[in-house]
């Protein structure tokens, strides 16, 4: 679904409000190969502080699931860059899996990541995604055994998301050796593109991962932190950060 190596950038929809998010997406679009758009959730238990706060800001601003679909629809008027929706399962389940996926597809989203939906629970979701031609992305962690990694690869039609560490999302100083070990293992086992995320926050991190063979690198908290700091006025510092991150793709 993307040109390699790809810079995949994440923001939370509606942070600090829906209108600003569209402006941010257009800014991200200049430097990113894929945009990952988070659907705000009241209980983001896989996320660290930065993205938790973004979720709170977005919900406080009154962001609804329907607003996120509208956002993608508006973005589509300006750009063809792939959009991946990242969500927890409850907003999907509550809306009805089929209705959610159909609306997401219709709005122009290309793929979905459901953080707390492991393969065991994903039967209906996988069928629906296939029916609507919605791309799927499953996560794999450093402790995911080889046979499971193979199943995750099979279930992921868009790409496989490799988690670089044990923990939640959030910027870290250094990349963990776990990231490189997992990437090496996944390159041997998987056939789909491999994107690495969690803790990636600098051009240097991007460079190291691309050198090690990552097809894509996901940066979230480092970007969301800037939005947290500057609010609606985040465009300039965002572009500066994105330029820096993008420089890591090429060496």
């Amino acid at each position, binding site marked *: 679904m993307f040109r390699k190596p790809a810079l995949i950038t994440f923001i939370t929809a509606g942070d600090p409000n829906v209108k600003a998010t569209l402006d941010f997406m257009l800014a991200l679009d200049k430097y990113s190969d894929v945009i990952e758009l988070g659907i705000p*959730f*009241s*209980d*983001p*238990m*896989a996320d*660290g*502080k930065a993205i*938790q706060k973004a979720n*709170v800001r977005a*919900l406080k601003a009154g962001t*609804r*699931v329907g607003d996120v679909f509208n956002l993608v629809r508006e973005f589509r008027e300006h750009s063809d860059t792939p959009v991946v929706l990242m969500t927890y*399962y*409850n*907003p*999907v*389940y*509550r*809306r009805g899996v089929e209705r959610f996926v159909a609306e997401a597809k219709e709005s122009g989203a290309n793929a979905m990541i459901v*953080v*707390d*939906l*492991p393969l*065991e*629970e994903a039967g209906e979701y996988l069928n629906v995604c296939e029916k609507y031609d919605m791309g799927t992305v*499953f*996560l*794999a*962690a*450093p*402790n*995911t*055994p080889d046979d*499971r990694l193979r199943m*995750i690869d099979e279930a992921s039609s868009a790409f496989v998301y490799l*988690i670089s*560490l*044990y*923990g*939640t999302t959030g910027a870290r100083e250094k990349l963990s050796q776990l990231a490189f070990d997992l990437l090496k293992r996944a390159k041997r086992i998987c056939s789909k593109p491999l994107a690495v995320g969690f803790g990636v926050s600098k051009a240097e991190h991007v460079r190291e991962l691309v050198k090690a063979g990552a097809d894509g690198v996901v940066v979230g908290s480092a970007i969301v932190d800037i939005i947290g700091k500057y609010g609606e006025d985040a465009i300039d510092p965002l572009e500066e950060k994105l330029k820096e991150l993008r420089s890591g793709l090429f060496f």
Partner: protein
Amino acid sequence: MKFGEFGGQFVPEVLIPPLKELEKAYNELKDDEEFKSELDYYLRNYAGRPTPLYFAKNLTEKLGGAKIYLKREDLLHSGAHKINNTIGQALLAKKMGKTRLIAETGAGQHGVATAIAGALLGLKVDVYMGAEDVERQKMNVFRMKLLGAEVIPVHSGSKTLKDAINEALRDWVATFEYTHYLIGSVVGPHPYPTIVRDFQSVIGRETKRQILEIEGALPDVIVACVGGGSNAIGIFHPFIEDRSVRLIGVEAAGKGIETGKHSASLCAGEKGVLHGMLSYFLQDEDGQIATTHSIAAGLDYPGVGPEHAWLKESGRAEYVAVTDDQALKAFVELSKTEGILPALESAHALAYAMELAKEMSKDEVVVVNLSGRGDKDLGIVMEALTCSANQL
């Protein structure tokens, strides 16, 4: 393993291997004679099992209906049923080679029971507690610290129990190699609801033996309060096949279901997925989890254990809700008639049982699970009684 469609393992991928490890260890140990006798030893000699099944004669006579029996879990060490589970899981953690326990707590009862189990078995304990609850429950915070545990205030989200669970899960994804997450109720991803149920079922097994000894027959009704639902599952489970026994779970209606300020997820919630399980949750149309209210902190949770969701759906158990005010009245009533201060959680079960008993005949029997003692609630009760017309 699921309970009908409920339960499951809705967790980030990284938690799948530790959950599998836990399930395997538990399945190997649960029927192991040495493990069972060690657990039994601590439950008897340390926690104070078996607990009495007490015939509340004064209360029964005053109400003039069915005989009311109280299962006295309030007499356990630590003052509540929580310890049945914490000793069991702490022993399990130790056998798995874990050196640290983490737990979530609302009012602090499960945190205290975990701190006790950690002190007893030599495991480090970190307890996550919503910042608001830390403020409201200072004595229990101090108690946990005295018992050697660290209390980590959680400032995210609504700063209460559900956020403490989120934070404990965040800790666990980073530390599972040496840490056991000791969940305090029949909630969370599989196998937790099963493990906690099994450790709490000692309540129902004893009750069955005791009531057969005293009355020579099974009870007509068993009533227990339901937050996450561990004391209720504990007393219900051994009676599930005894179809003549009505099982009634009592949720917290808070200030009234119609006010939206309650935590009655089975009575007023919708199906959803949170904290690893498919169950009933209080939530909005977008699936955002609601903030809840109950005067009883132990019931103040927006979800409920998946086995309760199944018992409701299958019709085997009934679920009702009782307000803060009704629970307070029952608290005062039991204190005066029987000289027992019930926990505000247990007072919910009692309030419903008292209404029910009045309408029943004198030869019928109602058992109430008195899951904890009320000393921890004195501050709240004092404040509530001074503020209301509900005079002593």
